[in-house]
């Protein structure tokens, strides 16, 4: 368990983005098996086509989860206090996704010292598929 040094993180700081893909049906079904959401529209070609889609529709919590761990790879999974995601566009098999984010704000309150991030995932056309907001706690002893 490692804390975030308050002094060493700055607003606007933006580490290297993560690109994954082309994402596959296997990526979707691996996430579905791990999470327990077995909605067939995300893996069953016949079902997805009958529902009016050309291919299985990506399960939204897959890019959301990857976006969240892009941030915890950087600031540590123990330090997370909030993660919020909003979906903007569907993800399809064959898409290449790039996840990035930056420090929006450093703030201090009675509850401690926090870093707020804004996050996004875009597809190969540059269109936003997921947006995120995340809060991490900083070490208070680290003065």
């Amino acid at each position, binding site marked *: *368990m490692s804390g975030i040094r308050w002094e060493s993180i700055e607003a606007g700081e933006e580490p290297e983005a*993560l690109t*994954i893909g082309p994402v596959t049906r296997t990526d979707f079904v*691996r*996430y579905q*098996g*791990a*999470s*327990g*959401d077995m*909605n067939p*529209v*995300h893996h069953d070609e016949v079902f997805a086509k009958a*529902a*009016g*889609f050309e291919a299985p*529709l*990506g399960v*939204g*919590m*897959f890019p*959301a*989860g*990857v976006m*969240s*761990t892009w*941030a*915890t*790879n950087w600031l*540590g*999974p*123990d*330090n*997370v*206090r*909030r*993660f*919020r*995601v*909003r*979906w*903007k*566009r*569907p993800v399809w098999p064959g898409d290449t996704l790039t996840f990035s984010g930056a420090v929006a704000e450093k703030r201090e309150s009675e509850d401690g010292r926090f870093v707020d991030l804004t996050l996004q995932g875009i597809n190969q056309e540059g269109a936003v598929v997921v947006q995120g907001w*995340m809060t991490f706690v900083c070490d208070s002893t680290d003065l």
Partner: protein
Amino acid sequence: MINKAALGAEGAPFELDVERGKIHEFARAVRSQHPEHFTGDTPVIPPTFLATMFFWEELVQGANPWHLAEMSQERGMHAEQEYVFHGPPPRAGERLFAKSRITEIYEKAGRRGGTLTFVVMVTEFRDASGGLRAEAKLTGVETSQPPKESEQEGGQS
């Protein structure tokens, strides 16, 4: 049509055991590269891990009140999801005591006409002594027209 009478509906309490093997599996599925999910006897969960409550609420009849809102299969989508942790996120070996509740139902005008109806469900996760460890907030949206790929405005399933 959303059943507005579902507002305030509570699910039956259920338990979620945070398991090491499930953390490994989930962390791989969301491409985490952080060693803290993969080493030690009590790894910490990834931020969206509480999505695995699916497995646990299925074991308890009436645990999930979401269906009471009667959101359409065709026109309903997952719009937003939020996880809040009151302290460090849970670790393997913890048993969480969970309960879900429909907390909000509201309407907004869609950008392209029609009405969007939002339904919010909050699941609280407590420890054995009743302390609040985490909350999951699910926001679903139902459009008055079937969503089309190029016209999606609320979210996705």
